[in-house]
């Protein structure tokens, strides 16, 4: 349905007025409804990602009821602070509130296993572990396709890599 006023945009505001037993109906788009003063709801108060996250942080929330709420030792943020700001305070928060943040991350991304880039210096043996995981997946594929020569080669590579990782741990 098009807006009664501008006849261009879709009508999303439907107003029914009853004055002296006389019923009138108007169908307006947001813009015209605002201009004609029919509505003054804050349409531009956009809901940001953080606003949604505040809600997500708050679901299943119990610590607020505790007499002393645990806080992050580094930045001083508590979990209920997240549900107010929608943002995490520092990298240590992710460890402090690990148990609470994990399910939240899973709800946002559908997973909590990073498979992308690993920084060279602070990544440590992570890059090797990631490579190991990739080789194992490849091995599975070769076994399924009954390509045993290739699989054997990968198996040796995997052993080698596992030794290397064990040596560094």
């Amino acid at each position, binding site marked *: 349905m098009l807006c009664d006023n501008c006849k261009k945009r879709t009508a999303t505001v439907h107003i029914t007025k009853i004055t002296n037993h006389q019923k009138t109906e108007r169908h307006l788009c947001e813009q015209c409804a605002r201009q004609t003063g029919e509505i003054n709801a804050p349409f531009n108060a956009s809901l940001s*990602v*953080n606003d949604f996250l505040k809600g997500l942080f708050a679901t299943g929330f119990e610590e607020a009821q505790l007499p002393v709420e645990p806080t992050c030792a580094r930045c001083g943020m508590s979990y209920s602070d997240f549900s107010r700001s*929608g943002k995490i305070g*520092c990298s240590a928060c992710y460890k402090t509130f690990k148990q609470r943040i994990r399910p939240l991350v899973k709800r*946002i991304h559908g997973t909590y*296993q*990073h498979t992308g880039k690993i920084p060279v210096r*602070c990544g440590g043996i992570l890059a090797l572990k990631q490579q190991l995981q990739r080789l194992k997946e490849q091995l599975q594929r070769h076994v399924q396709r009954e390509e045993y020569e290739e699989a054997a080669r990968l198996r040796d590579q995997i052993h080698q890599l596992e030794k290397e990782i064990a040596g560094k741990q």
Partner: protein
Amino acid sequence: MSIEKLLDDPLNFWLGGGGPQGDIALSSRIRLARNLDGIPFPNQARAAELAQVVEQIRKSVSSLSSVDGHSYLFIMLEQLSPLERAVLVEKHIISPLHAQYPKDRALLIRDDAGVSIMINEEDHLRIQCLMPGLDLTAAHALADRIDDCLEAKHDFAFDEHLGYLTACPTNLGTGLRASVMLHLPALVLTQQIGRLVNSATQLGMAVRGLYGEGTEAVGNVFQVSNQLTLGASEEEIIGNLYSVVSQIIDQERTARQLLLENSRDALIDRVWRSYGVLRYAYSISGNEALAMLSEVRLGIDLNIITDTKPEIFNELLVRTRPNFLQKMAGQRDLDEASRDRLRAQIIRDKLQGGK
């Protein structure tokens, strides 16, 4: 390059036209979110800690030059006037959030604006690389090198499972947001854009109009980007986006051909009417200008208008924005009516000069 040139030049190299599929894909952007380990994220950091981040990154300016041979400019946002910051926002170099709280916020920018690093925005570092046309791979390769260069000197907050740690959990993992700016007038004219936005969303992509509020995309310029950052590798994220964007571009091309075949006269009439208004209007609003510029660009792409360069569209996208006009006028308060007159004058001059 000076900050003045950065502000006054309407076109950065990535918006100058060209690049792969440059007639529809205006530019490609890669953004990486990174934080220094041991310092609270900007939303929780004290002023001294924010200043510490700025100082640490300032030291890396010279090593960045060795990555790509370009020179880099380091700017404290507080040194700029609110209007100058607003111009940088209009040019998509910094974000509104970054411009809003300038204290202890900085910008590190390459001489051609192809790389910009926002310091202390939502995260300590937001590395952005831009390329003209559809060229996500090149933009990512560059961002990756810059990331490596910075990581060689600074410890980034990183977790084995969550990847790069960010202030907002929606950026965890790769911290990568890839986006392409697309001009899609034919998909809008043939009313296919709504369906397309829905399907792209189902594939994990976000589509939004670059100008205009809410669902209305003024100027038919859309930005398509990945929504999720954790669980897939950088190459997978970029590959998925590339595939979706390529299909959108194909559909736009098909829609353009259909318009030419089925409503040739109506289309040609529409394009020239828009050209006529832009060429002779004495006063024009920002939204009207964007809408008509989009149709003129479509006319140029389809060889309906042959004596005007396509890059004029890209340039006028920037030149006709309110803060850019205000900056050019050099006056304190350009009221809306004078701004609309100035805008019309700039477009008139440009179209006459484009011959």
